[in-house]
């Protein structure tokens, strides 16, 4: 017999002797919930009467969103002078807010696409709300590059942003990362919407089939595209899903790289460094996971989703936050080191100035929120304290806004010539326009919670233990 055949025959013998222990894995769905329980749990949220708290939250969110509406109206009618920009700081809160929101969106794509390619089954409980967060975050982000042009009607036609010829028949400058941004962010927004939509088609079909009112049958029926759960369709669907995941992975990595090029391509000390692309991408994922935790932990308590978003899920999210936070901390240290090692006096000054100059207050907020707070996630006791995890996630978001602020403003306010230096402050219009975007995000997210299944329950069923065809049927509990 050939060596291969001998090896094949040998394996069963050895296994009988050794009897390897079955490695227990933490279940993705706890308490042995069956498929119908999962369907009822998630669909139940969008069926039935709208709860009172939702209306209250919507009113508050609309009120906060109006700050952005009013701020933008005032900006367009009066002019960009209503913002705090003045020499030498011509990039202020607007670009900081833009990078902040785009960065938040990146976690959604990471969870959907990258964790899918890495076969991480726990992603199925959080991928739909995370993708929703991405789509809405991109919507909040694009407000800033569009409105900062002042004469917003020129942003589209003729081309400040999009490639249409302007009044002098000049096309946009494709050597500029600002133009690359237009393509990167539009592509990112569009592909995120496509991926999000395709992922929800089977779940929309379930909602359609459970609908008792005609308008719901029609609305969800149209969106579900006639999905009938055919195995032949699932084969094409799974292939398309994998392809979109494979496309979204290089997309998410490239989008924040291109955003980082807005800074890295310029010659300013503190900006012109090759660490920016990976540093920005890691920072984006870090801030995005902070926002995912901020959103999911209250939802988990509110809708009693403890069996679907388990401690294992929270642990995994905390660990990714810790890992990316550590990468960001490493990047800070490296920037400092290279500034010293590179013996460039302007670069050295830029970093001393960040820590001890007029914006030192912002710098130390950034360091404590980004470097110190995620390190707490090493400790299991802290990861298991949901309230504390939520508080740390808020710090992560605050810290990441300050990081973009520190990068943008310190390099501009104190650049090469001391006679040009000045201190930049935002105006009331800047501040309200930014905080209003949280209201806008909340309005969109509340609408999502009310009308679209909160979780990808078809995917959750597929990764649950009983979803495996080779799993021996065990007694399933159906506790309320």
């Amino acid at each position: 017999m050939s060596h291969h055949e001998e090896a094949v025959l040998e394996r069963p013998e050895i296994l009988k002797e050794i009897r390897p222990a079955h490695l227990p894995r933490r279940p993705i769905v706890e308490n042995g919930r069956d498929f119908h329980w999962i369907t009822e749990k998630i669909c139940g949220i969008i069926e039935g009467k709208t709860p009172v708290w939702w209306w209250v939250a919507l009113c508050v969110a609309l009120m906060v969103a109006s700050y952005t509406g009013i701020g933008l109206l005032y900006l367009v009618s009066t002019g960009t002078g209503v913002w705090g920009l003045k020499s030498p700081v011509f990039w202020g809160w607007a670009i900081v807010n833009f990078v902040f929101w785009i960065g938040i969106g990146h976690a959604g794509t990471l969870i959907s696409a990258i964790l899918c390619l890495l076969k991480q089954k726990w992603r199925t409980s959080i991928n739909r709300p995370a993708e929703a967060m991405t789509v809405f975050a991109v919507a909040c982000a694009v407000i800033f590059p569009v409105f900062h042009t002042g004469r917003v009607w020129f942003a589209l036609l003729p081309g400040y942003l999009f490639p249409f010829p302007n009044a002098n028949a000049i096309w946009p400058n494709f050597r500029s990362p600002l133009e690359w941004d237009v393509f990167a962010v539009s592509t990112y927004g569009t592909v995120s919407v496509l991926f999000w939509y395709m992922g929800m088609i089977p779940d929309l079909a379930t909602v359609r089939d459970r609908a008792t009112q005609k308008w719901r049958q029609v609305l969800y029926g149209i969106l579900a595209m006639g999905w009938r759960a055919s195995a032949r369709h699932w084969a094409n669907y799974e292939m398309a899903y994998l392809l979109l995941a494979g496309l979204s992975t290089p997309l998410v990595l490239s989008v924040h790289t291109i955003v980082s090029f807005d800074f890295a391509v310029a010659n300013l000390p503190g900006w012109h460094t090759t660490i920016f692309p990976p540093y920005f991408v890691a920072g984006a994922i870090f801030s995005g996971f902070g926002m995912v935790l901020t959103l999911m932990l209250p939802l988990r308590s509110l809708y009693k989703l403890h069996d679907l978003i388990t401690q294992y899920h929270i642990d995994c999210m905390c660990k990714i936050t810790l890992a990316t936070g550590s990468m960001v901390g490493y990047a800070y240290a490296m920037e400092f080191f290279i500034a010293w090692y590179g013996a460039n006096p302007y670069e050295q000054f830029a970093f001393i100035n960040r820590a001890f100059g007029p914006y030192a207050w912002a710098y130390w907020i950034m360091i404590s929120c980004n470097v110190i707070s995620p390190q707490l996630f090493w400790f299991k006791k802290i990861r298991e304290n949901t309230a504390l995890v939520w508080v740390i996630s808020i710090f992560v978001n605050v810290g990441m806004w300050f990081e973009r602020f520190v990068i943008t403003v310190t390099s501009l306010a104190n650049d090469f010539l001391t006679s040009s230096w000045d201190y930049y402050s935002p105006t009331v219009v800047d501040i309200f326009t930014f905080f209003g975007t949280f209201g806008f995000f909340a309005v969109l997210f509340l609408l999502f919670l009310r009308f679209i299944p909160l979780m990808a329950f078809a995917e959750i069923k597929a990764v649950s233990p009983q979803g495996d065809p080779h799993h021996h049927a065990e007694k399933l509990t159906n506790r309320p």
Partner: protein
Amino acid sequence: MSKIHGVIALFDNPHDIYHAAKTTREAGYLRWDAFTPFPVHGLDKAMGLKRSRVPVFTFLGGFTGFWVGTAMVWYMNAFDYPLVVGGKPFFSPIFPFPVMYELTILLAAFGTLAGMFITNRLPRHHHPVMDYSQFARLTDDKFALLIEATDPQFDPERTRAFLAELGGHSIETLQE
């Protein structure tokens, strides 16, 4: 009397539908399908399905996107109104790369979604299986096997018996 579309049976768990599908394929049936509320691991192999054609659409989209991006940047910055920026070349493969890359991904994504709908022949808002009394459970927690009347081996009585043997219940005959 309207034509028969086929015979359908209900199964309770992924294990049962997997083995039922395997047996149906081995029995030589050609025009049949399984219905599952989620993709069951290995079911497409058990059914003998060939690899999906969606990647073809993805590739076509991506290829188009790449060349559209290249052509657009060349036309706009090097041909129609050559833009002088720091004495750099009017066109090189380096600076348009982000735009080419993003358009490749954008059109590939559109191709993928379109490919999924085209290969699945969706949207199709009505299909005979939706008249099955247990259809709502197919998107919830039950599994089904449907053998169509156009299959050469189809016989109303014998196919029903075959499905019952596989372990199916709630067997019904579907009309067109």
